[in-house]
């Protein structure tokens, strides 16, 4: 029996995402169809999910719960007052599935740089000026596209039964055809 047949046999609701499960899960949580997400993929937090459960262990009966609302309470690498956009920028700068990091930039460095320079544009400019790390050519452009993938990737709306963008594209922000292709057609 395939896994989907098994799910149907036991009446478990499911959906195959048009593209990535990550974005689809984020959308389901946003619609209120699910209350939380069980996964092993930290990208879910970057997609804006609020309640994520990692390392579900059905033998020990344990799970690690990460809530966005708790971000401000971290003592090391405080995220107090950080916007979703800054958190997303930190994740992208430190390297994600869609874009490799600038060599030598991990999570901690990305956090430090964003704390100091606030926006990714400023961070990249400062790194170039400093000249210690080699920032790839057109890195900022790649960064912007990556950000759009996290924001606007195409997902399925099970209530309206149609394809939508994870976040509605604001009227002022027309996407180029290149960008459209990147977030899924």
């Amino acid at each position: 029996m395939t896994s989907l047949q098994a799910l149907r046999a036991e009446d478990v609701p499911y959906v195959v995402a048009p593209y990535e499960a990550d974005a689809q899960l984020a959308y389901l949580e946003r619609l209120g169809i699910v209350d939380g997400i069980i996964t092993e993929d930290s990208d879910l937090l970057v997609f804006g999910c609020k309640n994520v459960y990692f390392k579900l262990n059905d033998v020990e009966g344990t799970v690690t719960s990460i809530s966005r609302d708790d971000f401000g309470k971290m003592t090391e690498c405080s995220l107090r007052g950080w916007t979703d956009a800054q958190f997303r920028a930190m994740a992208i700068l430190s390297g994600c599935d869609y874009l490799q990091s600038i060599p030598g930039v991990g999570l901690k460095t990305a956090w430090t740089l964003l704390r100091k320079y606030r926006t990714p544009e400023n961070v990249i400019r400062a790194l170039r000026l400093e000249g210690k790390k080699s920032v790839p050519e057109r890195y900022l452009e790649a960064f912007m596209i990556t950000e759009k993938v996290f924001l606007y990737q195409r997902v399925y709306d099970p209530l309206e039964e149609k394809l939508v963008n994870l976040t509605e594209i604001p009227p002022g922000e027309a996407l180029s055809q290149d960008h459209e292709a990147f977030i899924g057609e």
Partner: protein
Amino acid sequence: MKRVRLLRHYGIHPYMVFDGGHLPAKRGTEEERRHRRAENLACANELAAKGKHSQAREYYSKCVDVTPEMAFQLIKVRSQPASFLG
């Protein structure tokens, strides 16, 4: 399914989400994976040629690419329309 039953036992209603098509933005990652799969396949064939079948099997399982088409075929075989809301 064991996990699904466990969650249900504790009053949690699971809603499963699967990956669909390749996103062009992930091309880099996909290429890396394709490369890794090719390497695993070569390794598996080599082991199989030497008669080390159980070891070869391990590598063969690592070179399988679950394509969106496979997922689509699975959806097509469903006997009744699945309710996405459950």
